[in-house]
């Protein structure tokens, strides 16, 4: 039973403030909560087996103190924050943890979790190839299959085609609703701010899929009818980069006379843009996660394995989905943000900036160390960037 009485945006605001609350309630009621890291573990399988997928995030306001026992400071501070919270017992409501080889540290994090955090009885690591050609998809399907078997064992039940289909439909519905929510940001000014959007999205990663869909329906209705619309700002921006699960960056940008109207991040569009296609089997899952989900961790070369130089064709193959977002949301500038030491995203930046140049979209690159404190020096750069757009 949902104990809260608030609805829509205020409910999302509450969930955002205490993400684990609903999961703890559900666990008390006998549900199994399976945590996952990054976007590559197929949540449909977790839902289909009657468990609750819970996306594990870090905490930008919590100083990293315990993680030094298991990692040095030269790796991704977002993933370090996760293991830090794990070591401090903040995820002790999880029955399992699933990770994927999205990047090297993302993979070793799952091993560290198994060896040092130890709270969760179930740990699984999915190997994910780094290219999207057919043999890679087949290999990834095999990896999803072994995850399925392992989770079936843990759940004590078999995954039937029907159960998987139902779960795929529920998650696809969530994706469609999120896209509908994003459509409400196409107007000028957008009908909801990026901070409000992020609070809703983070909530979706903290709730069972049905409850998330219910929340989305409430929010969409509320936003369409709202009177207190956000103010019109000077610039309409796209934010690109790895995970950003904290509203602080969006608050900073929106205080600089700009609206963030769309994003290419893994808490936003990347998570919700691609659906699982019929016949909703493991191959369809492999296709959705490895090919249709666009994250720089998978290299989308125009001709796989081709080393002959065709720069423009490769750029287009890697980034053309951004062109659509830029047009549809009438974007006037792009903020590329990344967390320190993220080689996956760092590699993309010069090429992506070049691609945005060809679209006539000015961009700026900013780097932070996944702490609220590290955002302050960025403020002047963001303000100056918005000034150049005037």
């Amino acid at each position, binding site marked *: 039973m949902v104990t809260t009485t608030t609805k829509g945006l205020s409910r999302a605001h509450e969930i955002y403030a205490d993400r684990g609350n609903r999961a703890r309630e559900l666990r008390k009621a006998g549900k199994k909560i399976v945590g996952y890291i990054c976007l590559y573990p197929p949540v449909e399988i977790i839902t289909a087996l009657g468990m609750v997928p819970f996306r594990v995030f870090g905490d930008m306001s919590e100083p990293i103190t315990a993680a030094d026992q298991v990692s040095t400071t030269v790796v991704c501070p977002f993933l370090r924050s996760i293991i830090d919270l794990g070591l401090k017992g903040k995820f002790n409501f999880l029955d399992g943890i699933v990770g994927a080889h999205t990047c090297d540290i993302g993979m070793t994090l799952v091993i560290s979790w198994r060896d040092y955090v130890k709270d969760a009885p179930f740990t699984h690591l999915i190997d994910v190839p780094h290219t999207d050609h057919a043999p890679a998809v087949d290999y990834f399907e095999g990896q999803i299959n072994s995850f399925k078997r392992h989770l079936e064992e843990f759940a004590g039940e078999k995954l039937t085609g029907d159960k998987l289909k139902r779960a795929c439909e529920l998650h696809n519905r969530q994706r469609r609703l999120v896209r509908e929510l994003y459509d409400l940001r196409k107007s000028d000014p957008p009908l909801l701010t990026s901070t409000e959007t992020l609070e809703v999205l983070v909530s979706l990663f903290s709730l069972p899929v049905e409850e998330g869909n219910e929340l989305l329906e409430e929010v969409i209705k509320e936003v369409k009818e709202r009177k207190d619309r956000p103010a019109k700002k000077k610039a309409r921006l796209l934010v690109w980069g790895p995970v950003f699960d904290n509203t602080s960056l969006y608050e900073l940008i929106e205080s600089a006379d700009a609206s963030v109207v769309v994003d290419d991040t893994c808490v936003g569009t990347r998570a919700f843009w691609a659906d699982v296609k019929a016949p909703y089997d493991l191959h369809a899952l492999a296709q959705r996660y490895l090919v249709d989900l666009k994250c720089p961790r998978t290299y989308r070369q125009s001709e796989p394995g081709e080393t002959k130089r065709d720069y423009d064709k490769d750029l287009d193959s890697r980034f053309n989905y951004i062109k659509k977002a830029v047009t549809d949301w009438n974007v006037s500038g792009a903020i590329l943000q990344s967390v320190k030491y993220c080689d996956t995203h760092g590699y993309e930046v010069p090429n992506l900036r070049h691609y945005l140049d060809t679209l006539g979209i000015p961009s700026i690159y900013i780097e932070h160390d996944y702490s609220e404190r590290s955002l302050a020096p960025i403020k*002047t*750069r963001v303000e*100056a960037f918005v*000034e150049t757009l005037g």
Partner: protein
Amino acid sequence: MENATPALFFAGIDIGSTMSKAVIVDADGAMRAYVVGPTGAEHRLRANRVMEDALQKAVLALDDIAYIVSTGYGRVNVPFADKQITELTCHARGVASLFPNVKTAIDIGGQDAKVLKIRNGRLIDFLTNDKCAAGTGRFLEVAAETLGLDLNEMGHISLQTDMPVKINSLCTIFAQQEIISRLSEGTPLPDILAGVYIAITTRVVKLARQLKVEPPVVFTGGVAKNVGMVKAMETVLGMPVLVPQEPLITGALGAAILARDQAFQLIQKDEYRVRRDKKLGEAIIDFGEKSR
């Protein structure tokens, strides 16, 4: 002589990490007065002080100022400013007012370095180094302290050699250790100093190259006052650089010119309000306030 435009004046105030500057311009954008003073811990008191000094120099009263723009690291702490604009936009405007053809501006301040790409007097792209003391004025101060020299003296001594040593470390603290070990090896002082300048410059030029350095290049900021730095900048860039007569005040000058532009725009739209309610001496030090 009859004056076509009313006697309007505009001010820019730049609260930097180390120095505060104020500039007053007239309706034609010509500079009437400027003041430079150390920032210290109390930005707001400092803002009052440089403004008062600039007014005194220009023989004006605050009521003669039609519009004030604040900029720099401490721009939020100027209670009497009408608008805040970042130092990047202000520097670009200030530099372009002095050198209308400028394409690249390199500014090295006490705590940061910035590279500005300018077209037709407007900022179009920029990069900053504000995370680390290497490549900033602070690096020079640390070197000067280590060697017991004054900053100006250091610049002149460095000109005595054509054989700068290589300072390998880009970290301010490690570079300090490197300077000490060079001294103990008996390396001549001019060689070490010239090496220090090359090291800072290399760091900043690396940043500049990301934006492609196109001449004419203007070099500003407190560090541009140092002859050793100017020589090093020209050596590393491989092209001459232009240095304004007073390289510290380009940000404040740009702010003053933007204040003038802003006021004229408002006057044109008939939205200009006389700033009578904003007085000097209103600086209240309140640390509980949300003003970061």
